[in-house]
């Protein structure tokens, strides 16, 4: 296996064209354990962290741009980002230990394509877009369309994510991500739920995005839960509809972390709680982002 470290996006796409057996990586927190577990070594590993664009976090041009290979510690350490998107930043900060936070990335969390990836429901809830470089040039895709199943993505050969675009929040908007693990730290989600809520002046829900993780082959939106909220107040009745819709949207597996029935039940509970947390933040934010 060869280690290659391009300095620019163009250099990386050229290297990937020259080495069809190569794979890209960022923090290596999944890649190295997978190689140790016996996955075949690629011909070459292309390190994306040496490309400055891939590791920058910026607020320019009317939206946030988060490098796909920026360490999650860089997100949790960014006060402006954390104030505007507390749910997203908390989700990113839940991934692994401090040791892992200095290496883990949103691009890696998404492209490793674990159904339980913590950042993904929060990225989907916030409508984030992936800017993808490849042999055919650059394209943009919604984060929710990137994973296609456990360990697989829609990225074509030679493609990699450069950055994520994140629009500033409107006024009266808040996000939240909650996960269930049987301990306090250092575990993989049994269920995760992300929500983003915008309230109107009367306190009713003007817009809602809800996404659940670890309960289906990929993280997924719950349109029925969103529809139950829009135009209505947050109350016992609408929250019960959210929980029911989230449970119904699950297609989970039985494994050592949880049974199908348990995951279904918890998905409803967490979706409801995430909506409440996001709505509280929405009510507290009278002004939008920059």
């Amino acid at each position, binding site marked *: 296996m060869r280690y290659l*470290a391009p300095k620019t996006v163009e250099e990386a796409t050229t290297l990937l064209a020259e080495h069809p057996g190569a794979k890209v990586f960022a923090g290596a927190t999944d890649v190295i354990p997978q190689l140790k577990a016996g996955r075949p070594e690629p011909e070459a590993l292309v390190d994306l962290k040496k490309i400055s664009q891939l590791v920058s976090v910026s607020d320019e041009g009317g939206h946030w741009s988060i490098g796909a290979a920026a360490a999650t510690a860089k997100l949790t350490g960014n006060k402006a980002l954390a104030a505007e998107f507390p749910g997203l930043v908390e989700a990113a900060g839940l991934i692994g230990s401090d040791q*892992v936070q200095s290496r883990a990335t949103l691009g890696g969390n998404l492209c490793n394509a674990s159904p339980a990836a913590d950042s993904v429901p929060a990225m989907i809830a916030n409508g984030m877009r992936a800017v993808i470089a490849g042999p055919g040039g650059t394209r943009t895709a919604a984060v929710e369309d990137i994973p296609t199943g456990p360990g697989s993505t829609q990225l074509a050969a030679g493609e990699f994510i450069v950055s994520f675009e994140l629009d500033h929040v409107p006024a009266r908007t808040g996000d939240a991500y909650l996960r269930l693990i049987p301990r306090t730290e250092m575990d993989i989600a049994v269920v995760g739920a992300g929500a983003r809520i915008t309230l109107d002046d009367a306190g009713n829900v003007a817009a809602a995005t809800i996404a659940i993780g670890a309960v289906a082959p990929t993280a997924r939106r719950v349109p029925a839960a969103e529809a139950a909220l829009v135009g209505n107040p947050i109350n016992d009745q609408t929250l019960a509809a959210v929980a029911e819709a989230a449970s119904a949207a699950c297609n989970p597996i039985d494994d050592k972390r949880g049974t199908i029935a348990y995951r279904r039940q918890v998905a409803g509970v967490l979706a409801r709680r995430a909506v409440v947390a996001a709505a509280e933040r929405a009510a507290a934010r009278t002004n939008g982002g920059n």
Partner: protein
Amino acid sequence: MSRTHVTCTINGDEVEFLCEDDTTLLDALRDEVGLTGSKEGCGTGDCGACSVILDGALTCACLVFAPEVDGGTVVTVEGIADGNQLHPLQQTFLEGAALQCGVCTPGFLVAAKALLDENPHPTETEVRYALAGNLCRCTGYDKIIRAVLAAADYNGSEG
């Protein structure tokens, strides 16, 4: 295939070594550089026994490819004392017997140093969260947490 030449700063000294491209930083430190303080517990980033500070950030050396650190700066457990003067954490771990078998200890020392560098007077809760990535199967953690808090007090007495 020829081996890759890596130049970096380890514990303040410029160091050069040769390695295969798929060698981890942990294996390079132990086998090529001869610094065996960093331990391999799990080899998959779960236990923290190989904790090092890479370019200012705490990380697991087992999750880093050695060629990545070319031009970088690494601090290992061998680099935290000041000559013969133990780091306050090393002193309080000794005084508090905050170890039994000792395999996890280098990782705890480096992770705790990274914490105290950032936050010289953490609460017990902050210490426990900061050290969540370090596993100890002997002590039950209590003595380790107390030793870190004692070292933080030591920071205070030094002003």
